[in-house]
């Protein structure tokens, strides 16, 4: 059984910065959807996006030059600084010896897509002579984790995990392994992605973008809305968190990673991969499905995802019991590689605060999604065990389980 403490949370989302803002916003059902500002959508069939508003990188990126990196790195550094502060750690007070034991692992879908989009602009516009040295220093996705570590002087293990829309959970799983193996004493683990025309165009081509609202699990759901953001968790071995007197939001009890090995963009029709990920996570956590109080759904709001996720949830939990399951993507959209990291923070907060956020925009029930999806209203309830689900292109499935800290059980 795993015992890794979550001691800090950092969030940069389309409904605000910091869990002090984001959490009440989620409980109140705030919407982060606006007309896309980053690029012209006049030739697209949809126009809404979930961009992070009023974000000033210079407020967060203090040691490295702001223009030396791209937007996902800015968002990641902001979330990382918030998470550390939330964990009661001042990066300026970390000794060099301790910093050698502090690592960073981040997930992403597209890395820094704005940089390759600029390359495309130059190539298509026959202006390649304008390309300078910046691309190699701003584009490769591993720069996100590297920039976070350089900014904070974290000299321990550093790992980028680009496993698309399940990447936040994959990075958390990597962080857990690094801590359990004694490779680090503290890991910042999370995910980051920036809004991009490529992502928007691609999902549009797949017909996966909703024109108006994201309605996970509802009968007339029409798709997801792409978003951006970053979520970062401070992870420590529970005994070291306790010995420094840290507040522990939740502990990570286990995780399960599986692959459908079926199709790049379409999930397996019987939900086998997601079910195996949930079962593995329960098994490594020494838990049964009955122990789970709350499930944070992948819940993109596409017709297929929500139907198959329902099938998988039924396989794991049985049809007799309706575990509360909600999707915050109904409010902040699909933040890609950041999504499951932000949702991991939601699981930790649900345990710590005794509330679960709603699935908004839920109108007509869908018999194919016969779940208790906590429709439209946050619910106050004791949460002892929360499961965080995430699925991705490539057939990647990831479930991470959080539980109430043992000291408070």
């Amino acid at each position, binding site marked *: 059984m795993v015992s890794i403490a979550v001691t800090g949370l950092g969030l940069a989302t389309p409904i605000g910065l910091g869990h002090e803002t984001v959490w009440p916003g989620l409980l109140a059902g705030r919407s982060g959807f606006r007309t896309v500002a980053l690029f012209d959508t006049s030739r697209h069939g949809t126009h809404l996006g979930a961009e992070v508003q009023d974000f000033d990188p210079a407020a967060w990126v203090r040691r490295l030059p702001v223009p030396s990196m791209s937007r996902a790195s800015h968002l990641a550094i902001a979330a990382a600084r918030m998470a550390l502060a939330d964990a009661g750690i001042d990066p300026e007070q970390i000794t060099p010896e301790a910093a050698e034991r502090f690592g960073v692992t981040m997930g992403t879908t597209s*890395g820094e897509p704005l940089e390759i989009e600029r390359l495309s602009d130059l190539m298509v516009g026959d202006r390649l002579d304008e390309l300078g040295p910046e691309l190699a220093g701003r584009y490769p996705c591993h720069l996100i984790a590297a920039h976070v570590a350089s900014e*904070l002087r974290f000299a321990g293990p550093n790992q980028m995990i680009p496993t698309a829309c399940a990447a936040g959970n994959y990075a958390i799983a990597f962080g857990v392994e690094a801590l359990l193996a004694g490779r680090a004493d503290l890991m910042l683990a999370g995910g980051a992605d920036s809004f991009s025309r490529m992502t928007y165009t691609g999902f549009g*081509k797949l017909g996966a973008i909703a024109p108006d609202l994201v309605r996970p699990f509802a009968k007339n759901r029409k798709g997801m809305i792409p978003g951006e953001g970053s979520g970062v968790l401070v992870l420590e071995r529970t005994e070291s968190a306790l010995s420094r007197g840290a507040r522990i939001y939740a502990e990570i009890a286990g995780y399960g990673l599986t692959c459908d*090995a079926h199709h790049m963009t379409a999930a397996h029709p019987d939900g086998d991969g997601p079910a195996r990920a949930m079962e593995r996570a329960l098994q490594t956590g020494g838990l049964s499905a009955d122990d789970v109080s709350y499930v944070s759904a992948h819940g993109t709001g596409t017709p297929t995802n929500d139907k198959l996720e329902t099938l998988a949830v039924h396989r794991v939990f049985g049809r007799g019991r309706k575990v509360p399951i909600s999707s915050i993507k109904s409010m902040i959209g699909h933040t890609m590689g950041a999504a499951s990291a932000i949702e991991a923070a939601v699981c930790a907060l649900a345990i710590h605060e005794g509330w679960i956020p709603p699935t908004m925009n839920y109108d007509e029930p869908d018999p194919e999604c016969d779940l208790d999806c906590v429709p439209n209203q946050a619910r106050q309830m004791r949460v002892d065990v929360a499961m965080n689900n995430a699925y991705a*292109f490539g057939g990647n499935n990831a479930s991470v389980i959080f539980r109430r800290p043992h000291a408070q059980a």
Partner: protein
Amino acid sequence: MLRREVVVTGLGLLSPLGDEADAVHEALLAGEIGVKPIELFDPSLLTTKNGGEIRPFEAERYLGERNLRPLDRTSRLLISVAGRALEDSGWDEARAGGDRRELSLAVGTTYCSMHTIGEFDRRGLKLGPNYVSPFDFANSVINAAAGQAAIWHKLTGINSTLAGGETSGLQAIAYGADLIRTGQADVVLAGGVEELCFESSIAYSRAGRLAGGEVGTEGNGRPVPFDRARDGFAPGEGAGLLVLEAAEVAEARGAKIYARIAGSGAAFAPERNGDFAAALARAIAAAWTSNGAGGGTLLCVGSGASGARELDAWEAAGIARGLEAVGAAGVPVTAIKANLGEALGASGVFQALSLIATLADGRLPGIAGLDMTDEGFPLSGVSAAAQIVTVTPGGLALATAISADGPTIALLFAAP
């Protein structure tokens, strides 16, 4: 806690010097250079016109007559080596015989396909958003090759992609081994892939990191690891996978064992300057410690040095400090990127495969083209010629890599 031994039971690779591990080992020993004029794209805007290109790469040879259209070059490379690794390890046969065990995959890559991503975006720009290719979009995620390989070979276990520039491939092997040690997986295909393409090459060229000096000048520079006249790296490509397996699983099915993964360590250089040497030394020390306080003698080092002006010097300094700390100063050191180019995610696997071959026959390739090292160069074990190492059972080989962006890694392989 569960701590299992991890062994290597199968190999697959595609490199500019061939697709057979033994033949590539012989080519490296003979000092053959796989870095040649680039034909995959027009290299005239690059400082060097040479790269480590796989030519010809006929995916049909490995993948048969099935529909390859949805697969880009990166996916084809990875799927090809996965097939060979499964065959070599005996897992092909075991699965055909009814073994239903889940196989996992850990792929190191920096870009997956920067070319596919660029093509997707450029098509949308030129023709409009309705005319982009759904195939290209599916392949535009950085875990696309890992996903495609899982589909092709029915790998239903953990499927992770690890990005870290020059360290990616070794990162994936280290992670795969950790997953087996802690019981998260029994069998992991671990390694990496990278394609040679215009987009990544122009990025490095404009950043002044490729060999060859000014664009338009004659010559292709000197991408020779540790050489005093080195002036950058040659871009490369390839793919390689090791089949990593819990020793108990391998023994139970009577698999041949190439080597044992003895330990690994990773560290980061936040200042991205001289602290690279300190970081790599820490990574080496961590790898040594994770080997259970140093069972076995360190016999040789396979460095990730590429001809990069500063990075090679830092890597040499880091290796020297690491070797001194573990009492192995002066052991033979090689670097094979003069032969193969800098293939990022694939390079770490090439290093691993080369060291596994050395642990089998005691012959370590030389550093092709090495003429004279920097003044005060700290490693006495480098040589342009192949070297002989006396391999004892359990003898260790160390692979190292530094990414220009901060990550460093060290991995220890042990002779069976």
